[in-house]
């Protein structure tokens, strides 16, 4: 049920963020339904070969964001109305935007040019997704 979560060591982000992201995706596409029981922290840690403390942290953050509910001694479930607007992703997004602005400035791009390039990147993603779906 959960063995296909993949942790990448070359992904620069901390492991707990990777686990969070993949659980959210699972909830978003409905593989893990609202109210459904999810693996215990220890079970998931063992199946991912990742330390218990890392999975615990991912679960704590997911709970804080309202994606899952953990009951003491009873395990965790997907929240009845999971909140998938992720605070941490917003933070990460803002950080990346600042990097874009800074690098754009280093390259001497105007803010219109930076905006244009961002739009292009976003279009490419939509196109790629579309081709994938039609294949």
């Amino acid at each position, binding site marked *: 049920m959960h063995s296909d979560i993949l942790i990448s060591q070359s992904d620069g982000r901390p492991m707990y963020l990777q686990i969070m992201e993949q659980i959210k995706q699972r909830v978003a596409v409905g593989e893990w339904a609202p109210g459904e029981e999810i693996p215990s922290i220890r079970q998931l840690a063992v199946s991912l070969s990742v*330390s218990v*403390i890392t999975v615990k942290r991912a679960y704590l953050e997911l709970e804080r964001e309202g994606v899952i509910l953990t009951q003491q001694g009873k395990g965790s479930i997907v929240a009845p109305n999971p909140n998938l607007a992720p605070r941490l992703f917003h933070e990460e997004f803002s950080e990346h935007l600042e990097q874009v602005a*800074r690098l754009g400035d280093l390259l001497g791009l105007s803010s219109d040019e930076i905006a244009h390039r961002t739009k292009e990147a976003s279009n490419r993603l939509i196109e790629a997704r579309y081709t994938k779906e039609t294949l």
Partner: protein
Amino acid sequence: MNHLSVQFKGVSKKYTHFALENIDLELPTGSIMGFIGANGAGKSTTIRILMGLVHQDQGSVQVLGHPMPSDQAAAKLDIGFVSEDMRLYGPATLAWHMDFLRPIYPRWDQSYADKLVQRFDLKPQQKIKGLSHGQRVKAALLLALARRPRLLVLDEPTTGLDPVARHEVLQELMAVLADEDRTILFSSHNTLDVEQISDQITFIDRGRIIDSDNKEAFLDRWRRLRLLLPPDTVLPRLPGVVEVGGSGRLPVLTTNRFEPAMVSACNDLGATVQAVDTMTLEEIFVANVHCRRERLTA
């Protein structure tokens, strides 16, 4: 039940050319500790004291509630120990070793041993002297695991293993932790292995513990800040910064007590914070050792 499987208090041991000084160590039951140090830092000496193989000059050691070394016979029934210099008997087979150990340890689990033979891809009828290094390590680990010990102590279990074998070993160590009453201490100089599976991390250098914390706290505390300074400014010493590298106008600060307020503090000094980078455990270890050694020689 004791919630600490291992507890060192003020443990010291002096040799002519090396001293272990004032070691404090706590390992909560149900967790994995990665014990990291350079060669000769004192990892193996600490582990030998834990096992009662070397007696400390000072300080107390409790393992699974037993004082060491005085109560080592009782403690050892519950400890599985694998180290590099521990030899299996070359002319005998793995099956012979299993038959030898089975009657000694009451909790020996033969069906688990059989499963491990499969998972580790070992041949029970093959003589130990014909095994590769990786197979020998896996055989020794199998013999320790099948006893179902409450505490596993592994000195460099992944050193010299190929990637596939390393992966199998790490996976099997995590499987042990599915049981909340089991605890693992393993030493390594491979920070990648430690980073992946450890709950607790302890750094040792030149016979002293230089840092010990849970892994998430470790990774959260350490950051690198890349700054851009206006011309002709000198950066004052900032609290929590352990190392300043980079060049004059592009300094790179390394901190072990990162908090977001640091970024605003830099901005207030007229600096632009270009990036706040997370660090890998390896970078943290190296930075930690450097700044500690510098402080000692200063």
